[in-house]
């Protein structure tokens, strides 16, 4: 049956572009010719994370292996939670990119297998667009400036003329990558996530603000200089030589605090600049770093100052997940988009603004 005529549309989404494997099922209801009648409901959202030991990062090969070993269990759980059988699903969505090659490929193959097994169309999805659409759906932010912050990406985005346009981004490493690598230097645990543990530790710091290089260029920013400096400070501390501006030794907590205060101030600043530039007062924060409550708090203070507000989601939707891929994929599928099996590749490089956003005016 023609998808545009159906009142209930269901998609299953598969995500595995980094160290999280996620499968989710979404339901869209309503008449597509009347967007105001349409609603989205999360039927299931299952995730399993590959956690590497403290002091190490996750390698593509091990991560892909993790995804392959867990896919069937995670997918089965997602179907069970949703209370559905495969024939009720309209399409299978998967992350086409961007991300790490081996993990992306392993999940793409799994998605392709499901599509062939159940005889369903396949929809390739841009991971970043998945984050944005899920954030909009959950928070109800209609036309926000989007700050997308994760382990692999840092972008300030706003929608215009059927594309999510990138107004600002990191000029070197992603903010999440900066946090993760700093956590490794201090051997902070990766469980549940390095960023989460830095946030908890930072709450115990704050006696001093250590001077870190603040690097903003217009709506772009840079984190590699800060990482180098904070790694130096960590090494000095371990050697028992680290002294703060007040001459007293600083702690790991002070380092976490200073790092957060500095990099988040940069992120809020570039977001504010984009808001002034496009004349918007809504901000939506998406991506794994977006569940940091200090970042949300700072962003909220900035938005309030501009007479607007901040929209953020919790870890279920902020951290990589399958439901966002299902949701964004279904939005595209409802406009007639489909990825033929022969073309169902994935790509490490896939910019947010490459996607034609046909489902928005």
């Amino acid at each position: 049956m023609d998808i545009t005529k159906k009142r209930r549309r269901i998609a299953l989404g598969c995500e595995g572009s980094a160290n999280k494997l996620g499968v989710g099922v979404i339901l869209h209801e309503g008449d597509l010719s009347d967007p105001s009648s349409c609603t989205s409901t999360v039927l299931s959202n299952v995730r399993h994370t590959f956690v590497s030991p403290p002091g190490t990062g996750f390698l593509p090969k091990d991560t892909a292996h993790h995804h392959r070993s867990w896919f069937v269990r995670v997918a089965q759980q997602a179907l069970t939670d949703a209370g559905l059988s495969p024939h009720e699903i309209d399409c299978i969505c998967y992350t086409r990119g961007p991300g790490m090659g081996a993990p992306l490929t392993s999940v793409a193959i799994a998605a392709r297998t499901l599509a062939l097994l159940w005889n369903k169309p396949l929809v390739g999805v841009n991971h970043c667009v998945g984050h944005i659409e899920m954030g909009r759906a959950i928070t109800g932010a209609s036309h926000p400036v989007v700050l997308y912050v994760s382990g692999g990406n840092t972008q300030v985005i706003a929608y215009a003329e059927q594309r999510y346009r990138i107004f600002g981004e990191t000029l070197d490493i992603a903010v999440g990558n900066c946090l993760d690598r700093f956590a490794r230097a201090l051997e902070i645990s990766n469980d549940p996530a390095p960023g989460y543990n830095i946030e908890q530790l930072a709450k115990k710091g704050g006696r001093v603000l250590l001077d870190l290089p603040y690097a903003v260029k217009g709506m772009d920013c840079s984190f590699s200089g800060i990482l180098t400096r904070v790694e130096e400070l960590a090494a000095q501390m371990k050697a028992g030589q680290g002294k703060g501006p007040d001459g007293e030794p600083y702690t790991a907590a002070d380092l976490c605090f200073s790092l957060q205060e500095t990099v988040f101030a940069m992120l809020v600043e570039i977001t504010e600049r984009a808001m002034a530039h496009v004349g918007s007062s809504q901000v939506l924060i998406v991506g794994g770093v977006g569940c940091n409550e200090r970042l949300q708090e700072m962003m909220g203070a900035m938005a309030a100052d501009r007479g607007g507000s901040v929209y953020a989601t919790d870890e279920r939707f902020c951290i990589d997940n399958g439901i966002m891929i299902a949701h964004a994929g279904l939005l595209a599928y409802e406009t007639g988009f489909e990825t033929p099996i022969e073309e169902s590749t994935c790509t490490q490089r896939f910019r947010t603004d490459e996607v034609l956003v046909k489902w928005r005016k």
Partner: protein
Amino acid sequence: MTAPSANQDFPPPKILTHPSTSPPTLITQGAEGRLYKTTHLLPTLPCALKYRPPKPYRHPALDARLTRARISAEAKVLERCWREGVPVPAVYAMDAARGWLAMEWIEGVPVRVGINNFLGEGEETQTKGEGELVDLMKRIGEAVGKLHRTGVVHGDLTTSNMMLRPRSGTQVNGESEATGRDDRVKVLEGEVVLIDFGLATQSMSDEDRAVDLYVLERAFASTHPRAERLFGAILDEYKTTFKKAPSVLAKLEDVRMRGRKRSMLG
């Protein structure tokens, strides 16, 4: 004091509450600062007063450090540009610790507004008046070329940070009909004046200059998707104005490449 609503919502800096100051008007809440229109020394000399209020979200120590550094850097760079003939507003007065800078008032609208007025809402602007748009691009390229020639990189080149100042004496007369120009074309006339040097630095490095151009290029792509394809005209004129442009443009290629590579991870 007038402008009570502005005063209630946004307490202005002390300087603007002096009885001798002309009543300030809050023009805009920009990215970081608030811009007031007031007068300087004479009630007839209009002046733009840029005020950076404390940022509630930022750690106070970091906030004080950034505000002070940016106001003094902005004043220093403006002065240098002004001396070297780069089109910028002249500096009148400043107080870095209190976070304000008074400068020449530039008439006209930001280039962003000019371009948007010109392009309008419709989709039909493929060829209409493209010559005028290219001409504006050239004036932008020239201004940026002069800036870089002076040893300054802007740090936030966007079409919001350039003003289109009407040339004195350009009046809209009936005579323009002969050349087929209409009011829409007139909106692109004027001198390009660079503003907002809060993130500017003194630098002669190709890398910094290339990043400056890259920021502008991306601002164009995101803000004026329909004018993006004319961006080349900016670079052409930049080359004509600035002798060292070729090595900067080669570097720009690298910076773009890095940009594309950067999308590797989700």
